[in-house]
């Protein structure tokens, strides 16, 4: 199988979608002439021309809003937000305009745009360029959200997002852009939005995660004493309640691994839902492994501590399985 970096898989997905569907256009800062800050759009300008591959000014509200307008008028725009934090100045257009277009027109109009954004910590970009911020996009009716965890899932999710008749945000963990993965991409390959994947089967505990957390979870599962089932949730809105409930029904234990602050992470919603749905099956309280409620630190040692490592996750999972109660997070120990 050929080896691809995640950025190449993203580029392939865009290239294939542009080739197959004239309605697809790409907009963003430096996506055309420069080929994209992360090289996810390299070469598209030469192939598809300046009407479809659009370099924009540094003005997220303007060009994300333009993508909404273009989507309503029949195109399938894919917007690149360089760092997900930059979506902050454009959120109105996504959560208030795009997400209500179908509702307010009673189905006569829709805004099928895709917002791709690089996200996440681990590379020393500091607190304003390192967040996942998925909570900005969750909880808005009409808006879908998914997170890539490598080249294959980036391709499959992005193609599904572009096909989707509603607005979709695809978060691409920046840490993974350069990671090589054996990927055999077929043009028809899709990952349905709202579907989770079981990455590793296990009997003792369900470890649920997305994005860069998947690699950590797999490593943690290998290191743990417990027999850990690892699930890549892939989509956060809507999310695959059935798959998670089924897994927890077998394992009796649920742990979420979130690159999100404790107070804002997606695990709160997942745990509340699954605790109700699989209450009778639980043999231990659901447990969330998150970031502390603090910004992402710049210093390398601190950032490594801030993010859950595989060893830490293994330790937390084993403690839960062994003692039947939730272990304390690391910051309660150092405090």
């Amino acid at each position: 199988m050929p080896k691809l970096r995640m950025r190449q898989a993203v580029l392939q997905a865009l290239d294939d979608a542009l080739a197959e569907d004239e309605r697809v256009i790409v907009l963003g800062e430096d996506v055309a002439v420069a080929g994209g800050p992360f090289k996810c759009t390299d070469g598209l300008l030469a192939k598809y021309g300046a009407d479809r591959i659009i370099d924009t000014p540094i003005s997220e509200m303007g060009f994300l809003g333009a993508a909404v307008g273009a989507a309503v008028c029949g195109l399938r725009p894919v917007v690149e937000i360089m760092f997900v934090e930059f979506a902050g100045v454009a959120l109105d257009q996504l959560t208030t305009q795009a997400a209500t277009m179908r509702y307010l027109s009673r189905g006569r109009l829709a805004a099928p745009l895709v917002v791709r954004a690089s996200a996440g910590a681990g590379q020393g970009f500091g607190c304003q360029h390192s967040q996942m911020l998925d909570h900005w996009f969750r909880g808005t009716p009409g808006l879908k959200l998914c997170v890539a965890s490598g080249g294959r899932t980036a391709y499959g999710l992005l193609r599904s997002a572009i096909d989707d008749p509603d607005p979709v945000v695809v978060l691409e963990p920046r840490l993974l852009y350069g990671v090589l993965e054996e990927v055999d991409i077929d043009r028809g390959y899709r990952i349905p939005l709202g579907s989770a994947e079981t990455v590793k089967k296990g009997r003792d505990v369900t470890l649920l995660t997305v994005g860069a957390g998947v690699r950590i979870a797999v490593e943690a599962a290998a290191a743990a004493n417990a027999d850990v089932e690892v699930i890549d949730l892939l989509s956060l809105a809507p999310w695959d309640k059935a798959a998670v409930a089924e897994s927890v029904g077998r394992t009796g234990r649920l742990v979420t691994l979130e690159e999100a602050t404790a107070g804002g992470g997606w695990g709160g919603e997942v745990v509340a839902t699954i605790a109700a749905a699989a209450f009778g099956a639980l043999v231990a309280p659901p447990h969330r492994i998150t970031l502390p409620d603090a910004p992402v630190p710049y210093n390398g040692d601190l950032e490594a501590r801030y993010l859950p490592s595989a060893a830490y996750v293994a330790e937390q999972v084993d403690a839960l399985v062994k003692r039947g109660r939730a272990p304390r997070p690391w910051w309660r120990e150092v405090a």
Partner: protein
Amino acid sequence: MRPANAMSPTARRAILSDRLEQLVRMIEIRTVEERIQKLYVDGEVRGSTHLCSGQEAVCVGLARATRVDDVVACTYRGHGHALALGLTPLQLIGEICGRTVGCAGGLGGSMHLVEPDVGLLPTAAIVGAGLPLACGAAIAARVKRTDGVAIAVFGDGAANIGAFHESLNFAAIRALPVVFLCENNLYGEYSRINLTTPVEEISVRAAGYAMPGVVVDGQDVDAVGAAVTTAVERARAGQGPTLLETMTYRYSGHSRSDPATYRRLGELDEWLKRDPIVLFAQKLTDEGVLAKGDLDRLRDEVKDSVEQAVGEVLAAPQPARIEILSHVTANQPGPQA
């Protein structure tokens, strides 16, 4: 009675080529706004409304100079534009009263009027939100190789929000077929323009985007129509966007809860002397289009058709509760789909 409610929105748009119909539409807008005020007092309207009495010439001037395949992104002060573009009084009043006969089935309300058949995107309740949308509609026209034009309608208050700058800059740099139509009614919400904006004419800002900045008398429907035609033709010909400013006035406060006590005494009276309906009626009389007694007759006919719409609205059912869940995403189409 005029058959306003029985006509399709596209047919209502088409008849605007007739000058007498332009006058009738302006009267209709005024009549509907005044009726909505009464419906609120009667407890039939929830939340807030943003009336546009005094600005009718802008609405009709824009509608008569554009096509149904042009796209209009408009604001929450949108009743007049929606009616001018083709929405029927029944669809409009129905929406404002939250009934099934409304253009959004009663789910949107006064601030969210929509009619895709005449190019009206859902009007936005966020100041400035429509400007980027219009740029996108223009991009779509270019990619699809049509000669469609997008019009962003916004108030003077929106000229201070970031979306204004970002959209004019973006449209200019790509020579997009957009007309930025500013309704300068001197007030952004409760504040007079001099308190919030260092220039009294927004159009001077066009220079910063290397696009034409045009000011017209917003109380003169012919002046507005001609200026919009020029800007639209320029956009259609691929020559790029225009910032077109219409100087106008809203007779009421910002929204229903605003009695507009901050206005200088006498300011309203000065503007009432240049009422757009009176001005246009006089012009049509001078041209011989309107005979003595015609104006009163037209007003009565419009009043009747608006009353007919109100009657139908109040007799129309409330939307079913299942509608709450419908049309959120494509796989939740709801009973109407």
